[in-house]
């Protein structure tokens, strides 16, 4: 049933992508909306760990890079979300190794902190690739985008993360067999 799991993950990313492009611009502040794809990747990282999240991050990033109206160099969001998935999964694993056993549900504070860190890392990595590739981006504008996106992502966490995590928990393979 691996292909089914992949399909469910792909549909989750697609729904996030379409809502991010077609619904949230109506609510966006100065053009800056929430990164729903990033939230889905963080949800996957919290439930399934860094490996799965990094692969899902790559797939979500490629979709974000190619689906209209994207026009930036393809691969930039892919790189950013791979890093996000890996880092978010790693942080959670580290945390769970110290206290409770792995597989336990992370606390609400831990989820919020992970989302905030992931949002900061994701937007920054994307912006940094832009600067490295010679895009004209001003620092004040950059900081505004990073901060507002972070606030958006943290605000949407209570709405988006619980269903996403429940979904990934449901399609998770049985750990006792793994």
């Amino acid at each position, binding site marked *: 049933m691996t*292909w089914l799991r992949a399909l469910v993950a792909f549909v989750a990313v697609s729904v996030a992508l379409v809502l991010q492009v077609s619904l949230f611009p109506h609510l966006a502040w100065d053009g*800056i*909306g929430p990164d729903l794809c990033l939230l889905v990747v963080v949800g996957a990282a919290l439930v399934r*760990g860094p490996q799965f999240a990094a692969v899902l991050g790559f797939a979500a990033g490629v979709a974000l890079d*190619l*689906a209209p*109206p994207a026009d930036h160099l393809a691969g930039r969001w892919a790189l950013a979300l791979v890093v996000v998935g890996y880092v978010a999964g790693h942080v959670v694993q580290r945390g769970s190794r110290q206290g409770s056993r792995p597989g336990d549900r992370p606390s609400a504070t831990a989820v919020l902190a992970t989302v905030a860190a992931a949002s900061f890392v994701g937007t920054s990595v994307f912006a940094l690739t832009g600067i490295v590739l010679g895009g004209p981006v001003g620092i004040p504008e950059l900081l505004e985008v990073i901060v507002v996106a972070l606030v958006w992502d943290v605000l949407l966490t209570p709405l988006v993360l619980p269903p996403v995590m429940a979904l990934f928990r449901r399609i998770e393979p049985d750990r006792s067999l793994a």
Partner: protein
Amino acid sequence: MSRMRERRWRGPGGGQQPSPALLVALVLASLSLMTLDAQAGGPVDSARRAVGEVFGPVEVATATAVRPFTAVPDWFRSRDDMQQDLLRLQAENSRLRSDLATEDYDKNRLDEYDGLTAAARSLGTSLVPARVVGLGPSQSFSRTVTIDAGSDAGVRPDLTVLNNDGLVGRVLRVTRTTATVLLIVDADSVVGARVGRSMQVGLLHGRGVLGSDGRLDLELVDQTAVPAEHDTVVTWGSEAGGPYVSGVPVGRVTHVYSSVRETTQRAVIDPFVDFGALDLLGVVVPSGTASDRAVIEANGTLR
């Protein structure tokens, strides 16, 4: 492409120990994707098109579904008929304003014999109406939108896009049902422009910022010409009519900076179009283009 992803997913399963090799592989894959996309006409362009064919209709459907809800705040502001009046007056107002804005330009153009033939040629165009169905987030630092008209509607790359306030941008690429439009406020956008009063030509560069700071920078070809504040800037256009048709109002000069040392003039242009609230747009197509929808002809009739 999805089959490739499935195969990738089968590998790691749900393992607990993260392997650095996988991370390195994914990062390298992202980097090679960037390298591939850096060359024009590469395989990434066809991938973009294929993904666009799939996501385009979904975006159109989603935008159609949420449109009634995005209009909800308007219901509380005024009654329906007042809303209609308001829309009609706004449309009339912006039409009159753009008439006024291009008055200098029109006067100059009528004076010139060349201008007359250009005007005659620009009558041979018509508009394909389209709605904005997707906006890229500011996190991507590029200002592009998806519109719900594609190659089926007669839209093709490098066509001018405008709304009733002025110039919006140009078509970058199309799928069957959607098209991606580069807004003139994008940092990569360059538009040939002309100051309506003095007929001086120059180049307009976007700043990549939306909202109240969404300004354009005008660099005139003739370094000694000084544009006056409140002068109107229109598109310059090329002989072939692409990518921008001539005479479309773009914006108004708000500031002029001159650097004596570099002997350059730079003017800041406030665009007429509100790029934060784009909805109904028109794509300028050659007259007689086959389309899947009603096309607005140059004389205002629908076909």
